[in-house]
């Protein structure tokens, strides 16, 4: 497949890995965080960590939207789904996320709630049009990649004056999370792994562009390389970060220039700005309360806001005691450090959100057998 196979070439991968090994100095540390769950997945799937010299360490970041959704919001969605006459639509990954008392949307569905898995936001709008006598709610989550489609369906619902459709909005912002990892008070309390550089998200960056990262490079003096999701992309980004660190540079470089520009997708950005506004604060699983890190639906679109329609109030619910998702999402621990990993907690029966989505660090480690290297 074009633009896929060329970026998975094994021979070239080994050559780039050899270049990394030759250039990384054994006497210094290269602690690199891949922010995005898509990269975590690729790193596990292609065994990229096995190709790196000991001085280069990958730290998995919190960029998996399912993993950072707080339990209180899952509980809210379940409560909405249980209301009479409601159809709750959502992306497949969300169905198994355990809320309070390990109840998930899937369990609520088994108990009679009408919960439907959709592939896209547009599907949920269609379900609303097909079921005029039901209230259809789209449980929307995700970073900057899924936000523009949600904005689009809200605008379409308004244009069609659709009275039985609303969106439960949980969209969050990448730059706010990166800032939080670098400087929140909890980082000082809990300690954090020192980070020397970042691999910037692929698809998030197609929308927001490379410009927002310029601030981090500048302010925190950390290099950022935006990378695609294929194994060669990730390896090349690591090599570019190693070179920047060796040369004492901290710049934003774009390895994924085939899809990412400095300005990003302005049409999508304008749409998002039209429909959403910043929340003053929002809870992230693993990161806690993060200021200005999420979006709410603007007053102008109030009739399509499920939070207003169902008078949603969110409680802050702590994780299962032994679950280490919080520390894993901050890069403090690895999945195998959790004593539930692979025993009480597996993708079939997840205890924490990091085990639910394919981009979660625990699920990626489990699926591709990365835990074996430590056992």
């Amino acid at each position, binding site marked *: 497949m074009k*633009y896929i196979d060329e970026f998975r070439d094994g021979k070239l991968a080994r050559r780039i890995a050899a270049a990394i090994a030759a250039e990384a100095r054994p006497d210094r540390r290269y602690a690199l965080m891949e922010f995005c769950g898509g990269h975590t997945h690729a790193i596990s799937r292609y065994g990229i960590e096995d190709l790196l010299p000991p001085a280069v360490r990958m730290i998995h970041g919190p960029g998996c939207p399912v993993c950072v959704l707080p339990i209180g919001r899952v509980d809210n969605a379940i409560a909405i789904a249980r209301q009479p006459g409601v159809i709750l639509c959502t992306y497949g990954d969300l169905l198994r996320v355990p809320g309070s008392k390990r109840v998930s949307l899937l369990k609520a569905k088994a108990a009679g709630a009408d919960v439907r898995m959709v592939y896209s936001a547009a599907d949920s709008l269609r379900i609303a049009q097909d079921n005029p006598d039901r209230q259809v709610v789209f449980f929307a989550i995700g970073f900057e990649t899924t936000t523009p489609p949600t904005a*689009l369906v809200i605008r379409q619902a308004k244009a069609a004056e659709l009275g039985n459709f609303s969106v439960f909005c949980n969209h969050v912002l990448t730059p706010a999370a990166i800032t939080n990892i670098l400087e929140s008070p909890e980082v000082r309390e809990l300690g954090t792994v020192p980070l020397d550089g970042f691999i910037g998200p692929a698809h998030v960056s197609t929308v927001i562009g490379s410009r927002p990262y310029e601030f981090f490079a500048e302010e925190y003096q950390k290099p950022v390389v935006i990378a695609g999701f294929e194994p060669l992309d990730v390896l090349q980004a690591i090599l570019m970060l190693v070179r920047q660190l060796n040369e004492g540079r901290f710049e934003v470089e774009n390895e994924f220039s085939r899809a990412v520009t400095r300005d990003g997708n302005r049409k999508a950005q304008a749409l998002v700005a039209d429909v959403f506004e910043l929340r003053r604060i929002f809870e992230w699983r693993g990161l806690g309360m993060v200021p200005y890190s999420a979006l709410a639906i603007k007053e102008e679109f109030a009739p399509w806001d499920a939070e207003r329609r169902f008078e949603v109030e969110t409680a802050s619910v702590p994780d299962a005691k032994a679950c280490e998702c919080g520390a894993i999402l901050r890069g403090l621990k690895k999945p195998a450090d959790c004593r539930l990993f692979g025993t009480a907690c597996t993708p079939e029966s997840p205890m924490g959100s990091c085990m639910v989505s394919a981009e979660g660090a625990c699920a990626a480690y489990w699926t591709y057998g990365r835990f074996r290297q430590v056992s």
Partner: protein
Amino acid sequence: MCLALPARVLTLLPDDLAVVELGGVSKEISVALVEEVVVGDYVIVHVGYALSKVDPAEAEKTLALFAEMSEAAQ
């Protein structure tokens, strides 16, 4: 849910919809978020929406860079 792949645009349909092909499978998606899509373009598809177009010249450059950067070290 963040995984997304480049797909080729086969046909453009009304209402900003398009049929794309990926590994022999065709699928209807929305191109409402991307400006000026034409048949033959490769687009990055995510949750049923094209997010951006793939720039063939930039893809070539990146492939060339892989070869060049890994050679410099050998």
